[in-house]
């Protein structure tokens, strides 16, 4: 062994350098990686800092919203909806627009018996406006609950199951933003089918029949009543659906539980009414509460014996409980908050 490269007096040797033996003994502080430790590099990294400005809160929230809604239209880059789910939602949308087709056919038939029959069946009146949103069969038996179940199924339960909510919560996204945007996403999809189809139905009746301002002014209050009822349906179904999604780790459970709540309460109330001739238990059925409120909004005689106030209080309570449950469950996502 030669003396080359050995600094005996200074106490620094190649061995020290090689093994890092004296490195940092006298100064314990954060250090970056040692150069001599760069072993096994198989590609060159050149990290380029970014000097742009991160956007404000609404842009982040919009990103969450669009991620969930755009997935219905695009296969890549957004929340994944199964093709069958998308197809079913499309069929429900088409079905909800069926009266528009009938109105169009009625406008072609002239003034005969057929036109009269078409007009009674699908023309604009209080009952048809109510039925477009709140009719039990087929809309509230087959369409809206199924639509809601498909949309809310994995909305939060997938995050809970897969831990993907961590993706949001390790970013400057508050739990309120996360919940609000999920809620808005579901409400917009439901609204797109329920409220938009209602709006198109009303508008097409005016257009196809060539109605004027007087007709518009005459029917507008009814339309607004139905619109409010439709919005209440969207809000209530969204609240219940998301609350159920937030308490489960399975999209199947959330969907089935939602259908069970809607159909189960209705069936229970129906059985009680049949046996005891009281409609009071319909106050537990979200659909029937909405139906009674819708009848009041559109000025239709109520089908129910119990006071309207029961349904109003019930709907407010159902929404409040569901939103409280949703908030509590989202607060515990990715958290062990003992």
């Amino acid at each position: 062994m030669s003396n080359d490269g050995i600094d005996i007096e200074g106490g620094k040797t190649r061995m020290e350098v090689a093994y890092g033996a004296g490195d940092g003994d006298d100064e314990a502080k954060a250090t970056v990686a040692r150069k001599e430790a760069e072993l096994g590099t198989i590609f060159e990294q050149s990290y380029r800092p970014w000097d742009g400005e991160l956007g404000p809160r609404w842009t982040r929230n919009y990103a969450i919203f669009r991620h969930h809604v755009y997935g219905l239209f695009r296969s890549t880059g957004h929340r994944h909806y199964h093709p069958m789910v998308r197809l079913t939602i499309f069929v429900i949308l088409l079905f909800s627009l069926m009266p528009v087709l009938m109105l169009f056919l009625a406008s072609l038939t002239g003034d005969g018996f057929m036109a009269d029959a078409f007009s009674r069946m699908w023309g604009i009146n209080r009952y048809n406006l109510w039925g477009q949103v709140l009719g039990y069969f087929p809309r509230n038996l087959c369409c809206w609950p199924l639509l809601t179940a498909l949309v809310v199924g994995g909305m939060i339960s997938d995050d809970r199951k897969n831990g993907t909510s961590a993706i949001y919560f390790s970013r400057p996204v508050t739990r309120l933003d996360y919940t609000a945007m999920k809620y808005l996403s579901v409400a917009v999809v439901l609204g797109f089918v329920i409220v938009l189809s209602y709006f198109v139905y009303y508008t097409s009746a005016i257009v196809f029949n060539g109605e004027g301002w007087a007709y518009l002014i005459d029917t507008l209050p009814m339309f607004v009543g139905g619109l409010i009822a439709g919005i209440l349906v969207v809000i209530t179904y969204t609240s219940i659906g998301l609350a159920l999604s937030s308490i489960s780790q399975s999209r199947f459970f959330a969907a089935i539980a939602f259908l069970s709540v809607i159909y189960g309460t209705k069936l229970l109330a129906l059985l009680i009414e049949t046996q005891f001739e009281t409609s009071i238990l319909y106050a537990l059925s979200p659909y029937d509460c909405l139906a009674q409120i819708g009848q009041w909004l559109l000025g239709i005689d109520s089908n129910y014996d119990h006071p309207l106030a029961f349904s109003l209080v019930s709907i407010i309570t159902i929404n409040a409980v569901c939103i409280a449950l949703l908030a509590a469950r989202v607060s515990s996502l990715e958290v062990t908050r003992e």
Partner: protein
Amino acid sequence: MSDKTPAVLVDQASKWYGEVIGINDVSLAIDGGVTGVLGPNGAGKSTLFKLLMGRLKPSQGSVRLFGIDPWTNTSPYRRVGYVSESERMYDWMTALDFVTTLARLHGMTREEATARAEHVLDFVGLSDVQNKELGKYSKGMRQRVKIAHALVHDPDLIILDEPLHGCDPIARTSIMSVIRELGSQGKTVIISSHILEEIERITEQIVILHNGRLLALGNLHAIRALLDKHPHRILLTCDNPRHLASEFISEDPVYGVRFPEGGKLEIQTNDLSAAHAILPRVIVDSGVDVSAIENPDDNLESLLGYLIGGDS
């Protein structure tokens, strides 16, 4: 850093899960460079990371990221990139879509997000497969995607929870290279791992936790030097260990020698630097051929063993 506030400040923080202690009275400040957080299972590493990421509220004490309490305010996360151990991804997305989507969660425009996602995917060596679905990625590639999405908004603080877990050697080498590069860029990088050798290759700045307590913080060798009751050892492989031992035994820093096996000499000292300083001269004077010199206990594994109570 543009300000004097440390990236991470934990002040006498404790977290109890009922009767179970998560961490107990931990205080530390970390700012700049790469820091390894080490400890056996149940040491409190995950609890510490959850506290940093605002997923737990300390039972006592405080946690601050850039001077802000992450439990009550998410704004520090604009400057934090987090790689979770268990974080799942959207497997139906391509890596580019995934990272772009997450960039937009920071409020970037579509163009900015796409450009930035392409850059960070290139940085972690995935540019050639960025349009492949994540579900088809290997474990190592997925880990690199997680690092890419943590970097997409150019954070000042990067927290990596077991980023090397489950990776093959090539992927580990790649990820370590990325982490070293980030440290050399002036970022604050906190990394936990069970693979001690690889932490050693990334950094010498370590935090050691055990049973929820902070056992040591600082430079690996500085900590080792503080452990007076465990003498340092230098292992020499040579052709005449007994003759070499007779030369060493009279030197001041050396207080003992052993012959662990044939052809090897173990020198025991309390002052490793001084021992290394005399080592070349004594070897040259002895005329013995030395083929290898090792410091068997000046490494992380030995240090953990000493601190936690075992014997390495």
